[in-house]
């Protein structure tokens, strides 16, 4: 879903770049609370894994392909703020080194895949984990992250006058609803594995998710955090 140069007009790419830059600045401040010295290499590994996984396009019906975005995978294992920085790093390297995504569209791509995907998907995950299993909540959150990013991308294309929203939005949502299934399966599988082998890894805190209500899973993960610390 990396937008190339030429698809967005000046007002849209410049506006997206300004919003994206502001959000990155915000993330740099907010991520501090989630970053701890001994977990810093993990941030690099997750970024490298997402970069590598994004190279592996899987075929989708009708001669189309898709690949992992990885925003929700990063969010549920590193926290959403650190995840947005990880996604931004991946997108910047893809753009500047590999020409994947245009330089002028970088702000829009960061906005869509580092922020909208991360926070829409992670927000859905937080809401769903109160009512269903972790694995299902992660999978549905991952699916929503792809569909939300596709909707944002469609909106930017329409604002640019590149394509009418009525045509591009249903087409983008249709394909990405299918591509999102791959995102859901990969994200749920990798997150479940990481949580199993590393029970003390970053987990959302109960106050973020459920206010004063503490469920079993949170108590466990916080206990694990404390033992490790």
């Amino acid at each position: 879903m990396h937008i190339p140069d030429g698809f967005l007009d000046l007002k849209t790419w410049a506006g997206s770049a300004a919003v994206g830059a502001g959000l990155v600045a915000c993330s740099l401040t907010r991520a501090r609370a989630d970053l701890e010295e001994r977990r810093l290499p993990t941030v690099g590994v997750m970024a490298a894994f997402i970069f590598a996984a994004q190279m592996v396009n899987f075929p989708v019906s009708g001669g189309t392909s898709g690949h992992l975005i990885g925003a929700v995978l990063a969010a549920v294992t590193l926290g959403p703020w650190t995840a947005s920085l990880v996604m931004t790093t991946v997108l910047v390297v893809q753009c500047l080194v590999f020409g994947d995504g245009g330089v002028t569209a970088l702000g829009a791509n960061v906005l869509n895949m580092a922020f909208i995907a991360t926070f829409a998907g992670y927000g859905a995950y937080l809401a769903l984990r109160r009512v269903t299993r972790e694995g299902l909540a992660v999978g549905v959150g991952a699916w929503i992250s792809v569909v939300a990013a596709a909707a944002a991308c469609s909106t930017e294309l329409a604002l640019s006058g590149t394509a009418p929203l009525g045509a591009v939005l249903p087409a983008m949502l249709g394909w990405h609803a299918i591509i999102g299934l791959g995102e859901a399966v990969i994200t749920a599988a990798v997150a479940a594995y990481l949580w199993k082998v590393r029970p003390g890894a970053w987990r959302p805190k109960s106050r973020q998710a459920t206010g004063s209500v503490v469920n079993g899973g949170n108590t466990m993960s916080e206990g694990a955090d404390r033992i490790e610390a």
Partner: protein
Amino acid sequence: MRRKGDLAVALAVVAVVAGGLSLLASAHPDGLEYVAAQEGFEETARQVLSAPVPDYVMPGVASPALATALSGLAGSAVVFAVAWGLARLTAAGSAGSREGRTGTK
């Protein structure tokens, strides 16, 4: 020790995905490319800045498979280094507040 082992395993997994699975990637257009072709705005795509490793093919490498694998491995290494560095810089700004938090535990 366990952490160092974990890190080595994780980096090995990244290397297998970037340098191996990447060769199996589908060459079909992705969702956006497909929609752009369908809606007739594919031709408006341009490239403002030329990239050193265009399209994940390492220049100067004769074998296409090797060129893709090398670009995947090089890209993963760059992303790993940049993300780790960025995390260190971000965390460094909070050294004081982190001690404060630990103290209350």
